[in-house]
């Protein structure tokens, strides 16, 4: 089994969000970078579990980003994976990222390609689906469980207010979400081993930019909480009805 996991670098969840250059650029100074949680905890760990069960599997990781991404790629390799690819270009929009990955995945002979549901910075939720169409594979979004039996995959997917169990043949692209696996902490052996795993830098292909962020804004600050005494909870209901008009 040959597996590809798409991983993305994102700012840490507690990062201070600020913009510069006339609100056109996200300020990266002082930002701690992490692996996008959906990519790491769900896509990557599930792939590692599959390889643990079938050690003859080959697990590749791919990222689109500049050299400063190497740190998080090594963190991913510390968790698992045989080899990583980094497409040497700053990630632009989802379509351009998907196109860069497609250039690698198309002839890679992968049975299974795993992506995270979305990134926590741009919340695009698009790379997996775009990649699947670009390389002509089916896409199973919002998968909370994935089991393999030979050439077949059984997935449990979230639906609105419920779930469905689907059976489909490989090869396949899967969008992974909560439930797929549990977050792991890399051990010393993994961290040491990651240093010598191959990290291949690949030059990007030419892609048209379909979309571009032209500005950012921060939401207006909250007016400040209106406290209501625990002795008079009915005042809250009155406020929600008369003032906020939400009930």
């Amino acid at each position: 089994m040959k597996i590809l996991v798409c991983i993305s670098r994102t700012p840490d969840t507690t990062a201070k969000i600020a913009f510069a250059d006339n609100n056109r650029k996200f300020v990266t100074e002082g930002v701690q970078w992490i692996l996008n949680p959906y990519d790491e905890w769900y896509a990557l760990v599930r792939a590692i579990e599959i390889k643990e069960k079938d050690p003859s599997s080959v697990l590749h990781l791919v990222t689109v980003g500049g050299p400063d991404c190497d740190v998080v790629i090594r963190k991913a390799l510390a968790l698992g994976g045989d080899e990583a690819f980094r497409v040497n270009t700053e990630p632009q929009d989802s379509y351009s990222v998907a196109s860069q990955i497609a250039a690698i995945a198309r002839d890679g002979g992968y049975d299974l390609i795993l992506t995270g549901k979305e990134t926590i910075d741009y919340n695009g939720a698009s790379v997996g689906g775009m990649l699947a169409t670009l390389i002509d594979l089916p896409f199973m979004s919002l998968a909370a469980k994935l089991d393999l039996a030979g050439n077949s995959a059984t997935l449990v997917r979230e639906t609105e207010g419920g779930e469905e169990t689907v059976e489909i043949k490989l090869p396949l692209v899967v969008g992974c979400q909560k439930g797929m696996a549990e977050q792991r902490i890399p051990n010393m052996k993994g961290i040491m081993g990651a240093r010598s795993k191959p990290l291949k830098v690949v030059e990007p292909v030419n892609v048209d930019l379909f979309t571009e962020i032209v500005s950012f804004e921060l939401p207006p600050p909250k007016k400040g909480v209106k406290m209501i005494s625990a002795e008079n909870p009915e005042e809250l209901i009155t406020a929600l009805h008369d003032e906020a008009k939400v009930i």
Partner: protein
Amino acid sequence: MSILVFIDHSEGQIKKTSLEALCYGAALAKQTGVSAEGILLGQISEDLTTLGKYGVQKIHQVENESLNLVDAEQYIRIISSLAESSKASVIILSHTNTGRAIAPGLSARLKAGLVTGAISLPETANGFLVKKNVFSGKAVCTVSIKTSIKIISLNPNVYPIVSGSGAAEIVKENIPAQPAGFVIKSVSKASGEIPLTEAEIVVSGGRGMKGPENWGPIEELAKLLHAATACSRPVADAGWRPHHEHVGQTGIAIAPNLYIAVGISGAIQHLAGVNRSKVIVVINKDPEAPFFKSADYGIVGDAFEVLPGLIQAVKKLKGVA
């Protein structure tokens, strides 16, 4: 040229989020001087001509019952074909599970720039600019779509449903359906529950509720308010509540009109799932709970004492015993 709105339906009903998308599409069509049309795949017994009251002139229907099953590959193929034949300049979907399954593939197939999770109408005076939330709701960005065909998936509960009058023309499209490339083995649905992403009011519980056996008052309050129930991550991880109720950074992101958080401290990861709610109410025993900083209304108190009082007050408001 036309604005094409994808109309999603389930169990014989058109989804509320699709009505929002229709109104959004109709407004955009009016703004840009083109026609607003809808696409519906599958069979539904509702009279689709009445959708005209949301401002759409025509509905393209591929009335094949097998299409009641959401088959992303097939939907992408059919919608692309209809987009081309109806000369669509913009395709609107909802940023729901269905939208997430098909919008990206549609974008790649049509080479159409996509903005997912749009929160307002595009600005079309100079180019085509669409706003969406980024950094898990901590900021907003404006995206320019540069392609001639554009795709927008609209966030639930950001665009109002307004109905006027008018009847839509139904055009039956003869596009043959193909067998799905997968098999559905089973479907489970929490019956009678309002889907979290569609709920206008959500009542949510955290670790402060101390255990699953204490959820009665939350469920009762939710029922009275016609609200959906939600929970924080530790509660879902502990198995107190089902996983699909978990709202937060790695759970579901919601934007209801009212979010009532009971016994939730308000960690950043939880906030990321609820910070776009219009009104946030926090009930917590701890006056230092960080959630109060993001709240519109707050009560410092014991949930088990406050909730019954709230329930009484809502009953009184609604004229219920």
